[in-house]
């Protein structure tokens, strides 16, 4: 068991997400930064989408009531075990009775605590992921609270290989200012000039940034075609232009349908960056083709493998 001593600002149980239920109005949810989560799981020998703890902006304190193998990935929330600073992005051991503590972030929005075997809570519709907006999944459909206890898989005696992620890979993951996008179903609702405005100006992440979506502030983007859009399904990372001309990036807990025009869609390989954006961060959008997006995606995937980590 892991006992929550302090929950932090918004800590939830997350896994890969809840796929296949969009026709019931259920969005995938899952981790906000799927790459950090995936690396974290690989570092502790998990490879089946085991559930982990996702922390947001300010981390919590967790008492391990049994020995465990863990890793900390994502943004630097200044992790310490028994008040001693510990390294991120590598396999770690924690003993029964020890407390791991996190503070406020030094860089991005989210940090992950992965545990060998994962957090063992009941799956709802095939996933342990917490969907906060609809109180679905996770621990009672909510963020973690002081006193919560999370069951984990019992550690076996079997030794596991420890790994460390190279500085180059971490640096690559930490660059988040350029967000690449492809066209979306209503890109043609906007004139060339407006598209130019969208890609040549910086957009700032507003305070309204959460797992459902991130509202951006910048140059106003007006549509050319005013025709009403018939409500249609929405994809992860769709960039919707609201009536005030400002973009909203629809994120993991997005509503599954919408009727606002979508100017672009964040590519799969850059979705993890969205999960690390904080209010006041500045981003630039850059269009790529579906082919390029696919290539970038495969490049990222090949990097996120145990073979590209260093043995300890």
């Amino acid at each position: 068991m892991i006992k929550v001593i302090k929950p932090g600002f918004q800590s939830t149980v997350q896994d890969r997400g809840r796929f296949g239920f969009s026709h019931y109005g259920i969005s995938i949810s899952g981790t906000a930064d799927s790459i950090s989560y995936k690396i974290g799981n690989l570092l502790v020998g998990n490879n089946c989408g085991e559930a982990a703890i996702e922390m947001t902006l300010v981390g919590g304190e967790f008492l391990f009531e049994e020995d465990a193998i863990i890793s900390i990935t994502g943004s630097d929330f200044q992790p310490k075990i028994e008040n001693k600073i510990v390294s991120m992005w590598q396999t770690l051991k924690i003993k029964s009775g020890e407390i791991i503590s996190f503070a406020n972030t030094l860089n991005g929005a989210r940090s992950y605590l992965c545990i060998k075997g994962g957090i063992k809570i009941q799956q709802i519709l095939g996933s342990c992921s917490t969907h906060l907006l609809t109180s679905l999944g996770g621990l009672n459909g909510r963020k973690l609270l002081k006193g919560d206890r999370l069951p984990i898989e019992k550690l076996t005696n079997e030794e596991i290989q420890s790994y460390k992620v190279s500085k180059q890979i971490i640096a690559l993951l930490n660059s988040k200012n350029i967000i690449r996008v492809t066209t979306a179903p209503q890109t043609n609702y906007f004139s060339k000039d407006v598209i130019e405005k969208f890609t040549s100006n910086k957009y700032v992440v507003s305070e309204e940034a959460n797992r459902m979506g991130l509202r951006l502030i910048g140059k106003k983007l007006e549509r050319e075609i005013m025709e009403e859009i018939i409500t249609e399904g929405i994809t992860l990372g769709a960039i919707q232009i609201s009536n005030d001309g400002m973009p909203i990036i629809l994120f993991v807990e997005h509503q599954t349908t919408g009727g606002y025009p979508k100017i672009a869609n964040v590519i799969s390989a850059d979705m993890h960056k969205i999960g690390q954006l904080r209010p006041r961060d500045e981003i630039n959008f850059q269009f790529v083709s579906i082919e390029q997006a696919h290539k970038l995606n495969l490049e990222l995937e090949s990097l996120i493998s145990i073979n590209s980590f260093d043995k300890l």
Partner: protein
Amino acid sequence: MNAKMLTLNHSVEFSFASDRSILIKVCDDISPECNNEIIKIFSVLQSTSIEGIQSIHPAYNSILVAFDPTIIFPFKMMEDLKKLVQEKPLNIEYETNTINIPVCFDEEFAPDLNEVAQLNKLTINEVIAFHTRPNYLVYFLGFSPGFPYLGGMLTEISTPRLKTPRLKVPEGSVAIGGKQTGIYPVESPGGWRLIGRTPLKLFSPHKKPPTLLRMGDRVNFFAISKNEFEQIKSKQE
């Protein structure tokens, strides 16, 4: 129970909505006929085994197919979908039901009923009569878990949405938003006008399927008293 035999005979448009999704546009507007076409294609897609498909989301005149681009090359997915939808002659059996939904229109559950009546120059009883008269079509579910997009509301009771949406609309609320009516299956924010509440559960994550309604179903509303509401509610839990 009403089993329909459907045959597929429609040309449709395919486009990438993102690097991990394809939007299939089936018709240009909203109609029960288009809904039938959507049901056919949705059924075909659901019964296939194209590896990598993550979700299939039907809507009024389109279907969005999301896939894992690390499992299948996006252009291959496009090709496979086109083949499947356009080339496969089909007879699909799709069952739809008529579901009778009890609604309590008591003041306690209907904070906006009076305003809906006033704005439409009707009495409260007339609004209830208009709302419970049609046989509504469930076009699809979407937006939030179990939320039905219903077609068929009478224009006599159309009412603009609230200027400021409520932060919390209670579970089961029956509401009017413009020309549409709907039911909030889970507590959520919402800008539609609340005219009543149903004791039925429209979304139960532990059940299979997790929703009371499905695309193509028909819905009839009928008025119940507060007592009946409580009785049905207690049986639901």
